[in-house]
């Protein structure tokens, strides 16, 4: 038992190092070797990858590292998912290593994307599959993408008061189409407040990138329970 704990700890430390230096090959190698030693994909995800990604996210939250480092970590995590975990799962017992899928974008009328990009990366490093629709995205485009990718969470960002009304369009449109119960909607961005999120009937509000991830984790849990 102690040997196993030590081995997981060491793998985590090596993986964090590989992620911070964007060594994709090294990250894939570590993941593969842990699976070869008998760890299941979901065990690797929960016991090694997730704690490392959580720590990296915390470091970004404290601004000890920045978006470029977060991008490096996300790149390695993506490669591990695509090259090691998913192939192994396809031949396995139907386990999953994804926390959930999120469709994200800056809503119509707004072209600011740095805040949205930060949230997208933070979601990725926390185990979500993220479909980034970019900027100036209409309510219908969010719905179409969520359907296409079978994402249960729609995340919308706005930096402008004059683009915020387009956030309300999404919740109204989901209601109008009879789809409101199928999706969880989270909103955020500098001028957006909890009160505004409540007013338009959003399910959650992220005051910054860190809280957006926490909220999405809660939403993902609620979609699994419903």
């Amino acid at each position, binding site marked *: 038992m102690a040997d196993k704990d030590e081995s997981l700890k060491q793998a985590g430390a090596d993986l964090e190092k590989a992620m911070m230096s964007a060594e994709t090959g090294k990250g894939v190698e570590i993941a593969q070797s842990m699976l070869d030693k008998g760890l299941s994909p979901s065990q690797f995800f929960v016991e090694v990858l997730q704690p490392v990604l959580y720590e990296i996210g915390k470091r970004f939250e404290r601004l000890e590292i920045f978006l470029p480092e977060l*991008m490096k970590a996300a790149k390695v995590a993506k490669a591990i998912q695509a090259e090691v975990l998913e192939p192994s799962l396809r031949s396995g017992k139907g386990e999953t290593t994804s926390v959930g899928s999120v469709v994200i974008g800056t809503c119509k009328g707004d072209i600011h994307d740095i805040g949205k990009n930060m949230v997208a990366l933070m979601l990725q490093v926390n185990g979500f599959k993220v479909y980034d629709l970019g900027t100036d995205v209409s309510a219908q485009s969010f719905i179409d993408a969520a359907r296409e990718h079978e994402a249960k969470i729609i995340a919308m960002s706005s930096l402008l008061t004059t683009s915020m009304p387009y956030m309300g369009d999404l919740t109204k449109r989901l209601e109008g189409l009879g789809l409101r119960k199928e999706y969880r909607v989270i909103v955020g961005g500098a001028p957006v407040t909890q009160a505004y999120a409540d007013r338009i009937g959003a399910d959650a509000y992220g005051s910054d990138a860190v809280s957006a991830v926490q909220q999405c984790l809660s939403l993902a849990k609620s979609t699994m329970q419903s």
Partner: protein
Amino acid sequence: MRNAVRLLDVLDRMESGPIIEEEIFDMELVPSTMAALQKKYDIHIAADAAIVPEDDAFADRLFEAGLEMAETLGVFCTDTGRRMVWSRNEILDAIGLAPSELTIGEFPDAHTQVKRFPEDAARVTIKGGPVGTPSPEQLYLAIQQSYAQEPLVDLMIDGSLETVYGREGRSHSPWELLMAWHEMEMVLTAVARAGRPGLGIGCTEDSVSEIGELSVTSAERLGPHHWHHIAMVSEFKTNYALMTKVAHLIKSGSVIHSFYNTIYGGTAGGREGMAIAIVGGCILLQMAYMTTTHSVSPTHPFFGNTTTPDILRALAPAQQAISRNSHLLNDVVITPVGGPGTKTLLYEVAAQSITSVSSGAAGLIGPRSAAGTQPGHVSGLEARFMAEVAHAARGMSRREANRLVTEIVGRYQEELDKRPIGQRFDEVYDVVRVQPSQAWIDTYEAVKDELGQMGMTFDSPSAHAAVGGDLVGSEIEGGS
């Protein structure tokens, strides 16, 4: 230099520059360029470095890094998927021909803004206003008047409207046009009520797309002598809508004020990347928008403010780099976390004003109180305070500025994550008389007293009155 020939050249580059995917530009080209330039030019800013440094050699290296950044990246146009790029010589020619002095507004309220150097005694231009902060429609006129009537406000800048005729405003729709007209009608009334009908107005804040700007910028409405805004999207991006504004403003002979808000911890990175991005971003504003004045508002990713110590550590050397190595008319936007009625707001404004003025900023804009996100949490009194501190910091050595700023930062740093948004305009002002409440005045006086005890000397109102635009020309001679 700004003319129709250069406009065509810029637009041609927008249609013919190197093709790149936006994601590659954002996620690979920008971060890798920043990292390479930090290394090449030895750009390091320690976490405990002086907030206002006095290392001229470092400032000059930073300018070279920013220049190379501008040359390497250019500006990405999201509509054409191309980078607009310029050679080093083209950049040097263009910034060399940019104006170093500019008169904005109309007689008898016109104001001449001038280039300043670090530690310069020359007058700093005060551009007071809420900088796009949304305001309830019923308070908008009184809020704008509260800035226009402040004698130390040389130029005014608009807030934006929370609603238009009680309806939700929407960008890129007929509602945007109505908002722009409503803004124009009210700010022109505000300056008239303040007895300053020729005051230069920073506009149009309710024009996210080109619709609002095109509808209200004309000789009969918001004329070319006002300062018209165009944003560069972070990091280093533009689009057809923004370039349409540029074309219209150049064809109408208008003053162009462009701005760029790099994000701390974003694709440019931390302190060092932010410092390079500020310098390079200002150069690119000149190249893409042929701007007459421009501003930076380096922004915290979580608080939305510009006053954290890390940001000030990036801003100060970047400002010094620009003002030592060019004559660009560069302003700094002050965005505190604190809102009206709080000491935090005043401390933040004082720290960033002293940092910017001692580092050579030509103008200060704002304050955009409560991070510009809380409707109506703005008032003219904080612009008066910003102006008084700025004038007290003219001619101050960077060493003295650093001593003061370090002490002031200590008084608000721990408050930032509490987000003290303060009170709405109608809670800190009598909205009929358009005068600050006694409580707000008392807080303002108390903080001025604290700054006085730290060693700041404030001018009397009559001293300000004696410093007109004419004096500035002689003052700038000794500025370097």
